[in-house]
């Protein structure tokens, strides 16, 4: 398999670390290995690396550096934001509002809090995956202590009206958290203009390393710690800092947000050609998510009469990396909670394919997928008992 060409179209799952990021991380493994909490000079270098990265993250979000806290990734940031706010404000209230389409790091944290006595409202979404701000307004009670709505959905790529939702939260003086793991580098973020009080991010989604992320916490926000221990991160998050990871995160976010417009133009052009090509050549295929309000690299399509895992196996055979909302890859038999929330029937949700493009993709990649995919779909349809031929098919 040495010469096998790999076409990576799963950038929402993770990304390849940029060489510049690896370079930024390199000095902090063996050379500058000092513990930033120590006094000697090699430790000072480590401390400087952390503070440089903090400034880089702050600049990317329009925040102040002392509002940025490094974590082990998106899941920890989401857990910290939600549990930290919930437990710190328990005397004020016990109601949390989120949505049905959140990442499991948010959803499962909310399920846990329900077991701890909190009540949670899961806002619905429309067929494109959009939250209706009026629904948020209606859901707020005098017991509401937190609102958490993701910036952009990881499966269908829908970009939520975060600024508007944040304004509603602000009006009611309720902290507003957003899981922006998929949004960084794809959407302009300004925590002040968009009324965001807490924001989760993860380095490996924007060409940084795995295992490192950050939580933005607006100054004055009442929040408990999640990780207790030493006095790192201004006594908010214990544990010796992942210096190399943090340095990599800083460099990666700086590069990812330096020219979002140019990045989007390039990726969207490739994405739209691929999307149009698929919809044109493959009958009974439907785009999931919103046509315009979607992440530039995201394609999520349902192919009727076939199942997603078998599509992925054939694509993998051709060297194409993609993902699906079908249950069959997850171990449960329920298809994607996001697709179901948009009202897509379960049978069709099983036949969904997610292709997420990134900087590494080329026109040749798009051509290759357009060459391979129609054959894969038609091969699987021919062996599907639901397929009655192009004219006679009805689900």
């Amino acid at each position: 398999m040495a010469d096998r060409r790999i076409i990576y179209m799963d950038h929402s799952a993770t990304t390849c670390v940029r060489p510049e990021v690896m370079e930024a991380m390199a000095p902090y493994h063996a050379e500058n290995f000092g513990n930033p909490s120590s006094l000697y000079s090699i430790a000072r270098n480590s401390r400087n690396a952390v503070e440089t990265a903090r400034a880089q993250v702050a600049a990317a979000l329009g925040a102040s550096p002392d509002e940025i806290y490094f974590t082990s990734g998106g899941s920890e940031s989401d857990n910290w934001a939600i549990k930290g706010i919930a437990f710190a404000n328990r005397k004020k209230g016990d109601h949390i509002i989120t949505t049905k389409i959140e990442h499991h790091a948010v959803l499962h944290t909310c399920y846990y809090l329900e077991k701890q006595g909190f009540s949670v409202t899961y806002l619905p979404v429309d067929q494109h995956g959009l939250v209706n701000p009026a629904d948020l307004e209606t859901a707020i009670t005098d017991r509401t202590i937190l609102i958490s709505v993701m910036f952009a959905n990881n499966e269908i790529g829908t970009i939520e009206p975060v600024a508007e939702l944040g304004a509603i939260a602000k009006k009611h003086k309720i902290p507003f958290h957003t899981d922006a793991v998929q949004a960084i580098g794809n959407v302009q973020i300004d925590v002040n203009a968009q009324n965001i009080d807490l924001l989760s991010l993860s380095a490996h989604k924007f060409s940084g390393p795995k295992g490192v992320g950050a939580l933005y916490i607006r100054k004055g926000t009442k929040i408990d710690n999640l990780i207790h221990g030493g006095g790192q991160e201004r006594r908010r998050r214990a544990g010796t800092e992942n210096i190399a990871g943090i340095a990599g995160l800083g460099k990666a976010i700086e590069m990812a947000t330096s020219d979002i417009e140019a990045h989007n133009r390039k990726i969207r052009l490739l994405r739209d050609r691929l999307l149009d090509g698929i919809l044109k050549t493959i009958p009974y295929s439907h785009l999931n998510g919103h046509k315009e309000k979607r992440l530039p690299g995201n394609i999520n399509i349902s192919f009727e009469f076939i199942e997603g895992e078998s599509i992925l196996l054939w694509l993998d055979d051709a060297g194409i990396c993609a993902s699906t909302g079908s249950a069959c890859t997850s171990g449960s038999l329920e298809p994607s909670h996001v697709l179901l929330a948009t009202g897509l029937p379960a049978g069709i949700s099983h036949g969904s394919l997610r292709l997420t493009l990134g900087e590494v993709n080329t026109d040749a990649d798009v051509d290759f997928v357009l060459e391979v995919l129609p054959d894969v779909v038609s091969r699987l349809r021919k062996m599907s008992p639901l397929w009655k031929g192009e004219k006679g098919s009805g689900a």
Partner: protein
Amino acid sequence: MYSDKVMDHFKNPRNVGEIENADGVGEVGNPVCGDIMNISIKVENNIITDAKFKTFGCGAAIASSSMATELVTGKTLEQAWDLSNKAVVEALNGLPPQKVHCSVLAEEGIHKAINDYRRKQGLEPWVEKNLPAHDHEEMTCGT
């Protein structure tokens, strides 16, 4: 995650299709659970002379149907009825635990096709020993 045998039967499925004028047909599963198998058989002198399948489902579902049709061809109806999902899993050199239900579905599909044949012959259908993999009445998905 799949054995080479599963991948072989997924990529080169044996016996795909529907037998015209089949002597028995069984369709099991439902789209909500993400897998449907349609199995048709030809029977001569109590022996399954041909078996074909059409499957909507994952790699394991397609491989299980392919293997099951291969295993029952040439068998008597009694032998085919006794073919368990375990035999399908073994012949495929194993399935991941969460995919074992695909082999159960294949067993059910074969049973349903055999009973369809028996009914057409005016014979009593044989009784299933095990619970079905999917509860069709309530449209819930089980393992």
